[in-house]
């Protein structure tokens, strides 16, 4: 058991890997995303939904009121980007948590018990894995309609699979280890063994898989919104802003540049952070 009070030297040994440029960049981007998401109303200079056709398509004015310009109906771009961060973060966090809980639970049960249970769960997994990336999400939104909950469900529909594969493999390797066998022979039930002995050992790998799942969730949400299949269009999203920008590409480059840059920098940061975490915590995981 890790004690909560760490001396500074052991803290450096544990978390020093987070002080490399790659990791710092990733952590900065992630913090910025969280801050924008949590404090959007305080940070945004304008109401993101306020339309003003007299002030439509103003080019970025450094120092002016509309620092990053306005869109085709006069909404302030910077404010919409900040509120867009909120949607990206909310959806990505929900997808990562739900698919993580579902995938790890299923994977641990599959790997720990093996046999019949394992083959049924693996067949179930195979069905969801059969769909090409994003297609199942597109189909779910196409049939069930657009809503925050449905988009989260759609994006989580395949995201749980990497968690499931990873935790199955780990549980299989752990179930015959001495400390598990010892716990069993001391009379611990399966549930207790799973919770106290298997799960804690899977956490580092879950963190790695979760980081990449977050990147995938953010880009998939943006893609769905771009296709007009994301959350309802009244909510500002980076993908939705890019879809709007398509029609005004010849006159208003800023409408296309900034939302895309937000998605790109966010993904780059999370991917770099994921790479650092993977190298440190679990070099085995590659493309699950």
């Amino acid at each position, binding site marked *: 058991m890790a004690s909560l009070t760490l001396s500074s030297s052991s803290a450096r040994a544990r978390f020093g890997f987070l002080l490399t440029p790659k990791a710092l960049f990733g952590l900065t981007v992630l913090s910025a995303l969280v801050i924008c998401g949590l404090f959007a109303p305080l940070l945004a200079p304008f109401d993101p939904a306020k339309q003003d056709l007299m002030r439509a398509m103003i080019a970025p004015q450094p120092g002016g009121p509309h620092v990053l310009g306005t869109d085709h109906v006069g909404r302030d771009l910077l404010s919409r980007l900040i509120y867009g961060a909120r949607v990206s973060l909310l959806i990505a966090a929900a997808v990562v948590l739900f698919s993580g809980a579902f995938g790890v639970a299923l994977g641990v049960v599959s790997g720990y018990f093996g046999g019949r249970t394992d083959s049924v769960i693996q*067949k179930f997994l*195979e*069905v969801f894995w*059969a*769909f*090409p*990336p*994003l*297609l199942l999400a*597109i*189909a*779910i939104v*196409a*049939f*069930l*309609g657009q809503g925050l909950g449905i988009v989260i469900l759609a994006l989580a529909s395949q995201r749980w699979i990497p968690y499931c594969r990873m935790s199955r493999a780990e549980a299989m390797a752990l179930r015959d280890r001495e400390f598990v066998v010892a716990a069993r022979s001391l009379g611990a039930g399966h549930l207790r063994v799973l919770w106290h002995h298997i799960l804690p050992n899977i956490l580092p790998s879950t963190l790695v898989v979760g980081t990449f799942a977050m*990147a995938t969730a953010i*880009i998939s949400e*943006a*893609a769905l919104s*771009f*296709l*007009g*299949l994301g959350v309802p269009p009244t909510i500002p999203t980076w*993908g939705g802003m*890019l879809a709007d*920008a*398509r029609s005004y*590409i*010849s006159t208003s*480059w800023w409408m*296309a*540049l900034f*939302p*895309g840059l937000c*998605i*790109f920098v966010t*993904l*780059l940061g999370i*991917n*770099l952070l994921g*790479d650092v975490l993977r190298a440190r915590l679990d070099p085995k995981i*590659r*493309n699950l």
Partner: protein
Amino acid sequence: MLGYTVRRLFGVIPVLFLVSLLVFALMQAAPGDPVSMLISDEASAEDRARAAEAWGLDQPAPVQYLNFVRNALNGDFGTSFRYREPVMALVLDRLPATLELALFATLLAVLVGIPLGVLSAARPNSVLDSIGSVVGFFGISMPNFWLGIMMILVFSGYMNLLPSSGREPWGMGLDRVTGFLTLDAVLQGRWDALAQALRHLAMPAIVLGTSMMGIIMQVTRASMLENLGEDYIMTARAKGLSGRTVLWRHAFRNALVSVITITGLEFGALISGAIIVETVFSWPGIGLLLIQGITFRDFPLIVGLVLIYTSLFVLMNLLIDLAYSLVDPRIRMR
């Protein structure tokens, strides 16, 4: 090998069956009455009932599903609500456009990604390796719809160099033989048409191939590094072989297996990744057909396309597995 192939083929059937059940259940769960998409809201109750009967929508859901499966097994994926044409015919008409785009994207990704990966691995931590690593991370982090829009802005908008949408200019008058415009142009000796087809392909293919290029580069590099650390490399060097021979003839040949695998898997993913790229560039493939189908709530078209996409994807992955087991017989033993 034959036994393994047959076993894998039969393993795919229940999966595809369950996939169809899942997609059909989703359609049944959709809010609203599909008949209202067939007929105007002002139609009389009798007309509505007649339309429902004609399209088999009056049957209970399980019967509708069984009918659907029976027809699908005969290659009939139903009739589009909007086009009033068989879904299969619509798909076959547009499939070559998607495949041509995916093939060119793959070609680009392979031609850039593999050399970059090999050369980065040959000199780890060199300037070239850093460039390669940056390109790799940019490739996987770049949203392809944004890259597409920015390329349109620069190459169509500012420079007026490349067309921003479609596969060919209006009235090019090229006869369709294979549906692959580049191939059709060559077959008919229409060099002007070939140039036009390539000009239209350029941006969509680059955009679609970028993330694949990043992935291929990273896999090539990792696999090369692994092989370069093996004893046989030291033996080859000790024999006095040149660095280039060791790199390409020895290490690269062994790294090729994983490179081919990832290329195949990514090609399957590209076909659905093309949905977004086709939307950006108004490329008349099956991806654009799907998005238009969703806009019009054309349920038979959506169901048919989702199942055709998934079948293609599953078969592609199966082929890769089989090819892999041909190269590495240990896999068949499992």
